[in-house]
């Protein structure tokens, strides 16, 4: 038996040598994706993984530097008019990988198309970018030609805005604003972006293998890229990995160079000397928070409309415990409505939410205060018992179920009389329930689309579709209106202060209970350097990455 086994082993070894001998040549970087790439069409993509692959292959007017600031890309330079309403971008000489030059017309076509199709990210054109005429096209079906974008010549692209947008250049690296070659798009029609043959690149990489739904895809270096000299990678192999445990083994085996792990696997990696060095924590931007429904029909007879009850809950949750023991991937316990580390002031450079102790009076782990608030709430509502159902997504990461259970434990421990029942469901159903206001408490998240606190604060105005708690406050609405279209849009510092005031209102009334700001724990193979991680827009950028 032993002999037979060793014979089999010998044969297997021999075969494996043969099979691996062919794997020579330029080394590709093996990178883990958490979910499938849903679409390579800038109009249809909505997830970070898709955006990442699109950005590997297509450049926008600007690109992100390591700090997340906008640097020239396809636009060599740009001029802003005095009133801040007109941007003129001067394009450099760049080529699509079929040889056609990239022109201003490619931008005009792509932008009009986004507005006309009115998809998920079309709001970047009207609500965020405030591009002239965009709103009418998106909502009222106006002629796409009326959009305030034009191409006076092949190398000049002009954008007109309704109001000045201070962060406009940094919007330009978001894939929604990327160009598409009209002629090529029309020649492939519906199949655009479904295979390397039906997709055009002008960026650092070209698509090498891809089919919709595939679990592995690859891109290879684009020799015709305008900055091809600075791109060091031969290519990237992307592999979708379904579980953190599998990601860890894949990394150990060398099957992948960059993986994301969480929970128990981070713990294991920290204890393993050879892995601990390879661990890099990067911000993911997402703020996880509890949304409270304040309408009468929900939450045990509208009990959560009571501000003291909400404050009691938010003061009973031990956020440090959540991140230390359950999330464990370097996520930050968060005590502000705008998460830290993504929006820095452009005048002082200070992070909007640098001071996490700012709202210590209203949010934090404070059992005594929680008891006080609860007593007040019980008195005001005239009841002793409250039962709520907390909904969370079963397919939004392993840690979510753990966090939900830990919150239940904390709240029921510290707030006698309050019972929280957990209910898991798919993310789609969770969103459906929240959008139809059919829930009590929801464990939900929001990721920043652009580097400005407004990406969060804009959600709590009356009747915003993301204001799932149906909270309404006239003072707050006025503050936000002043910041987006009114008095403060030209005064950067005044706007900054107004936003802080607005955030204070949200925290005082415990509109939401912020929990933690998600981070990613990455394992990166030794010898790989220069991969840039960002919490906003593009999560990973490989343009300056090197591999030994």
């Amino acid at each position: 038996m032993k002999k037979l086994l060793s014979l089999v082993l010998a044969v297997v070894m021999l075969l494996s040598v043969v099979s691996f001998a062919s794997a020579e040549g330029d080394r590709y970087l093996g990178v883990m994706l958490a979910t499938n790439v849903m679409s390579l069409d800038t109009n249809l993509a909505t997830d970070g993984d898709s955006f990442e692959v699109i950005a590997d292959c297509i450049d926008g007017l600007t690109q992100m530097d390591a700090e997340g600031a906008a640097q020239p890309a396809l636009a060599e330079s740009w001029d802003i008019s005095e009133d801040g309403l007109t941007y003129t971008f001067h394009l450099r000489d760049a080529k699509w990988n079929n040889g056609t030059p990239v022109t201003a017309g490619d931008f005009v076509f792509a932008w009009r198309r986004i507005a006309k199709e009115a998809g998920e990210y079309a709001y970047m054109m009207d609500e965020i970018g405030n591009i002239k005429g965009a709103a009418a096209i998106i909502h009222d079906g106006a002629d796409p030609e009326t959009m305030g974008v034009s191409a006076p010549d092949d190398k000049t692209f002009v954008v007109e805005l309704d109001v000045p947008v201070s962060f406009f250049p940094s919007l330009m690296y978001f894939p929604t604003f990327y160009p598409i070659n009209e002629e090529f798009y029309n020649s492939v029609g519906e199949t655009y972006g479904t295979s390397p043959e039906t997709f055009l690149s002008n960026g650092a990489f070209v698509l090498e293998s891809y089919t919709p739904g595939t679990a592995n895809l690859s891109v290879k270096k684009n020799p015709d890229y305008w900055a091809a000299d600075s791109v060091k990678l031969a290519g990237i192999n992307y592999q979708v990995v379904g579980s953190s445990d599998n990601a860890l083994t894949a990394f150990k085996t060398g099957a992948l160079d960059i993986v994301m792990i969480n929970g128990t696997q981070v713990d294991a990696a920290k204890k393993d000397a050879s892995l601990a060095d390879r661990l890099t924590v990067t911000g993911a931007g997402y703020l996880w928070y509890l949304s409270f429904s304040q309408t009468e029909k929900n939450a045990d007879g509208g009990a959560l409309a009571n501000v003291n009850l909400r404050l009691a809950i938010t003061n009973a949750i031990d956020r440090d415990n959540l991140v230390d023991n359950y999330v464990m991937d370097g996520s930050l316990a968060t005590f502000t409505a705008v998460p830290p580390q993504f929006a820095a002031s452009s005048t002082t450079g200070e992070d909007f939410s640098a001071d996490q102790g700012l709202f210590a009076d209203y949010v934090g782990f404070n059992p005594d205060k929680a008891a006080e608030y609860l007593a007040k709430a019980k008195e005001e509502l005239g009841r002793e018992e409250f039962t709520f159902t907390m909904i969370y997504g079963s397919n939004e990461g392993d840690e979510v179920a753990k966090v939900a259970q830990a919150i239940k434990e904390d709240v029921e421990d510290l707030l006698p009389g309050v019972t929280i029942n957990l209910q898991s469901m798919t993310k789609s159903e969770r969103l459906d329930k929240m959008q139809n206001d059919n829930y009590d408490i929801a464990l939900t998240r929001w990721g920043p689309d652009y580097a400005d606190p407004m990406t969060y604060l804009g959600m709590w105005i009356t009747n915003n579709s993301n204001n799932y708690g149906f909270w309404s406050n006239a003072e707050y609405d006025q503050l936000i209106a002043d910041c987006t279209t009114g008095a403060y849009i030209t005064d950067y510092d005044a706007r900054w202060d107004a936003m802080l005031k607005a955030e204070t209102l949200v925290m005082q009334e415990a509109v939401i209970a912020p929990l933690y700001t998600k981070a990613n724990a990455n394992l990166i193979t030794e010898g790989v350097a220069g991969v840039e991680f960002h919490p906003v827009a593009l999560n990973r950028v490989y343009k300056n990455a090197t591999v030994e």
Partner: protein
Amino acid sequence: MEARMNTKPEAYTPQPGDFEFLSNRDITTDKNYSSLSYWKGVAIHFFQDRKAVIGLIIIVAIILLSVFGPMINEYGYRDIVSFRNANNRKVVAKGIGPRIPALHEMLTGAPYDDDFADRTFLFGTDDLGRDLWTRTWYGARVSLIIAFVTIFIDMLIGMSYGLISGYFGGPVDQIMQRFVEIANSVPRLVIVSVLAIFMAKGMGLVIVALLLTEWIGMSKIARAEMLKTKEQEYVLASRTLGARNGHIIFSQILPNTIGPIITQVMFSIPTAIFTEAFLSFVGVGIALPQCSVGTLIEDGFNNITTLPYQILPPIIVLALLMLGFNFIGDGLREALAPKLEDM
């Protein structure tokens, strides 16, 4: 059996040693079963079978443990074992392997050197810091209830359906089989999602969901068995004697088809348990922090390389359950099927 078939009888005079008894029952003393009821006979047969008794003991032990197991230590199934340290940070007993402090000290001469050195966790703790011994038996309880209820009802429905369909054949069979196809063709996830609109999520929904789909396999087996046996002589004999269809199906054919049905029942148990886990995963099963054998296996699987001990208890419980049921099933089959010698 093997010996008999390997002897070649060509031009051969049989010797006394060539023969052996078909069964190992002692036929020199004639037992008289005529005064016994059918079920009493079954019971006698069953308890004479050593393996069947072992199977019964295993199952009874698991049932007892699932009832009393969670009570023998101080942890509840949802209790997170933790304390606050000097910095007011919560320290949770998560990811601790099986430990008995006294035993460890006896073997190594030193106590554990961590924050939970004096705690006993027979099966360890999970990644949330809950005692796995308690959770394993609590989960076994949930899974046993679900498995027993659904499989018993499914067996009744499936068996009757399949036997009737197979017995009558022709158009009755055609219509009944097309209905089965329709019932089986709607993906389970679709049925359950739709059901979840009308029913509260939880154990009840899981049971109904399993009821809706699991009987089909049973009915297929029963029908196949019926097709195989219905032309046998004893059925013809009964029919000639004027027995009613119901009598023939349920009193005469049923006992003879019980073997494969029991095998199918046994193989339905893991299916039921894993389906339940899948339903919990997509959010229509039992709600956290409750658990079942299936969800425990799934939790363990998420940490299979980092906390390998976590997946073992539920899988071993499941394997023992299966082993026990297998032995019982074998014993039952031997005991239930009326043999020629008994008549």
